[in-house]
C-alpha cells in the first residue's frame, strides 16, 4: 500500500490545481454571465467583409 503515499498527495496536488484554476476563472468574470457567451460563437459570422468592407473583396456565398 506504499503507493498510496505517492498517489494521494498527487491527487491532492491535482485538486489544488483545479481549485486555483476555478478561483482564477471566478475572479476573471468567467461565471458572471452563464448564458450569453455560449451563444456568441454562433452569432459570429466569420466573414471578414462584414467588419472591414473595403479591406477584403466580397466573397460569393
Amino acid at each position, binding site marked *: 500500500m506504499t503507493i498510496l503515499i505517492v498517489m494521494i498527495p498527487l491527487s491532492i496536488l491535482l485538486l489544488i490545481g*483545479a481549485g486555483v484554476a476555478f478561483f482564477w476563472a471566478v475572479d476573471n468574470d468567467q*461565471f*458572471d454571465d452563464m*448564458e*450569453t457567451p455560449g451563444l456568441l460563437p454562433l*452569432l459570429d459570422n466569420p466573414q471578414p467583409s462584414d467588419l472591414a468592407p473595403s479591406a477584403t473583396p466580397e466573397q460569393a456565398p
Partner: protein
Amino acid sequence: MNTASGCWHCGEPLPAGEVVQVTIDGATHPVCCHGCRAAAEWIEQLGLADYYRLRSQPAVRPADPAEAARSRAAWTRPEMARHVVREFGEGSREAIMLIEGVRCSACVWLIERALGALSGVSSVQVNASARRARVVWRKSECSLAQVLETLARTGYRALPLDAAALDDARKRESRAALKGLIVAGFGAMQAMMYASGLYLGAFDGVDTSTRDLLRWFGLLVATPVVFYAARPFFAGAVRSLRARALGMDVPVALAIALIYAASLIEALRGGAEVYFDSVSMFVFFLLVGRYLEMRARHRAGDLSDALARLTPVYAERVGADGALERVGVSELRTGDRVHVGEGSGVPADGALLSARCRVDEALLSGESAPVTKCCGDTLVAGSIVVEGPAQMQVEHVGADTALAGIVALVTRAAAARPRLAQAGERAAAGFVARVLMLAVLTAIGWSLIDPARAFTATLAVLVVSCPCAFALAVPAALTRAIAVLARRGVLVVRPDAIEHLAGITHVVFDKTGTLTDPGLTLDRVEVLRADERENALTLAAALARGSRHPVARALAAAATGRSMQVSDLRAVAGDGLEGVVYGRRLRLGRVDFALGGASLQAGLDDAVVLADDKGVIAAFHLCERLRSGARAAIAALVADGLTLEIASGDAASRVADVAQRLGITQWRARLRPADKLDRLATLRSAGARVMAVGDGINDAPVLAGADVAVALAAGTELAQASSDIVLAGERLDLLAEARGIARETLTILRQNQRWALGYNLLAMPFAALGFVPPWLAAIGMSASSLFVVLNALRIGRQGERSRAAGLVGSKAVA
C-alpha cells in the same frame, strides 16, 4: 418577428400614410419612424445585420434623435461626468452603465460589437442578467458622450451609474458563494474517497499506519471546507447570537464545529472513528441550497437599480433669459423653471406653468390612461409627459418628491413586515440546547462510573444526535421547492415565502398591469348610421393609424380591412384626430369634439366617436384587455377557498368593469399607495393572511407590507425588488399551482422534522448509556440525513403526475 404588420426594427405597429423603408441585406423592410430607420441602417453599416436574424425579441424603439442628442450633451458637463467616470490606469477611463432594453444575447453581441468598433474603446463587457456594461476607453481618443451616442444609435438607452456602484456588492456576493461552493464540493468529493477507503478497511482489516494516513488526508481536505466554505454559517451564527436569538445558523455552525472538533480529537488520539466526510458533505449540501436561493434573489433585482431607472438624470432648466440649459437633477433647486419635452420624464415635483399637457402617471397612481393637466396642476417626478412640451416650476426635489416618498414607504413596510418566527428554527434551537445538556450529563455520569468510556459515549451522543437531520429538514425541503417552482416559472426570492404562501387566506390584486394588459381592446362597435356598417371601423382605423395614443392603437389593431389613404391628418391634443378620407372630413375622438362642440346624443360620454359633417357615424366602446389566463387563475384561487379583492388606483368604473368580468365581488378604486397599505393592515388585523399581487411602482409599498408579495416579471423593478415571488412569463394561473406546491412542501417539512425528532429520541438514550459504538452513530447520522433529503425530493412529484394524468384525460375527452 411580426414583420408583416409591425416595424422591422422595434415591432410597433406601422403608421398609415408615408411608410419609411429601410434596406437591409438587399431586402426592403418597413419601419415605423426615422429613428428606427437610422438605428437599422447604422447596424447594417457596421456589418451587424445578423442581429436581426439572431434576436429573439424586437428591439426597443429608439428615442427621438434630437432629444437623445440633447441628453448626451449633458454628460459632457464635468459636474455630471465626475460622479460616473473613474480613471483607469494610463490615460484610460472606465464607466459602468445600466443599459435599458437589453433583452437577449443578441443585444449583448450587438453592444459589444458596436462599442468595440469605436476607436479608442479598449474593453467592453456586457452582462445581460445584470443589464450592465463596463466600458474602458482611452481619454485621448474617445469620450463618455461618444460611447453614449453609439449606444443610443444602436437603440439602447444607457444610464451611467454612480462611481460608488462600480464595486458591485451583488457581484462580490455571488463570487464568494461560488468559491465557497466549489471548495466544499471538492473537499466533500475527496473526503468521501478517503472515507470509503476507511470503511472498506474497517471490514477487511487495515493496518494502523494506512488508516492514520487516510485520516490525516481527510483532515487535510476537510479543513478548508470548515474554515473557508462554512464561514457564512459561522458568521450567521455569531450575528444571531449577538442579536440574542438562536437562528438556524446556530445549530448548523455548532454541528459543523462539533463534528470537526470531535474528528480532530479522534484522529489525534487514534480513536475509533473520524467524520471528515460527513462534515464536508453537510457543508456542501447546505451551500447548494444557499446558492440557489441567492441566484433567485439576484434575478429579482434590487432597489437601488430600480430607483436609478425611474428618475431622469438631467433636466432642462430655463434660464433668466429663457434659454435652456441641461443640468443634472441633483443641481435643481426649489423655484427653478424646468422645460420637459414630449416623451421625457418629469425630473421633480412641481406646478405646471404652461397651459396644458398630458402625462402618463400609470407607474405612480395606477391610472391606466394618461391624465390631462392644466396650468397650476401638480406634476409628479417620474411620470412621463406624453403630449407636451411642458414648463413647470420645481416645488420639491430629491427626497421630498412623491416618488421618494413611495420608496420610503416601501422600505418602512418591508422593515415592519411581521416575520413569522420559523417553526423549524425554533425547534432546532431548542433541540440543540437539550442535546448539549444531555452531552454534559453523559460526560459527568460516565466520568463518575468509568472515566475511560466518558469521551466515547459523549461523542456518540453528539454524533448520533447530530442536528444535521434537523438542520437539513427545513433547507432540503425549501431548496427542492424552490427548484420545482423555478422550473414552472415561479421565482422564489425569499424562501420563507413558501411557508407563508401555504397559509394565506386573502389575495389582493392590483388591476392595471396585473389583471389587465397595459393596452386597450375594442369591446363593441355601435353603428348609428346603417349605410356605414361595413366601413365604420375601417374609416376609424385609417385615422387612428396616425397616432400613438393607446385608444388609437386599439382601434388600429382591431381593424382587419385594407387601409385607406388619409390626407390632411391633424391631431388635436387631448381631444382626438381629424382627417380627410375619400374627400370626406372625418373626426375621431370624444363626442363633443367629433360633433364640433354640440353633443346631442346621450350615453356616448365614455365612447370614442367617429363623425362627419352630418353627424355621428359610429361609437366605439373600448375596455381594458384582461391578461390571458387571468380568468382561469381567479377561478382556481376561488376554488381553493381564498377571498379575492382588487385594490386599484384607477377610476371606479374601470375597476368595477374588470371585477365584474372576472367575477370578483370585492373591489376598491382610487386608492393611493398609502391607502392600499392601510387596507392591508385592516385585513391583517382581522386575522387574514394576505398575498398581494402587483406590478407597478404604486404597488411596491403594498407588496413590501404583505405576508406574501408576488410581482410580475414584466413589472417594474421596484415592485420586483420588494416582492417575495416573481412570476416569470406573467402567467397568473401559476399562482394556484404554486400554492399547492407550497402546501406540499410544508407537509414534507413537518414530516422531516418529526422524523428527525423521533430518530433522535430513540437513539439518544442508547448513546448516552454507551451502547452505540461511534461507527454505528455515524451510520445512523448519515441515514437520518439521507432520509430527510430523499423525502424532500418527493416535492413536486405529485404535481407532475397529476399534470400528466390531466393531459391524458383531456386528450381522451378531445
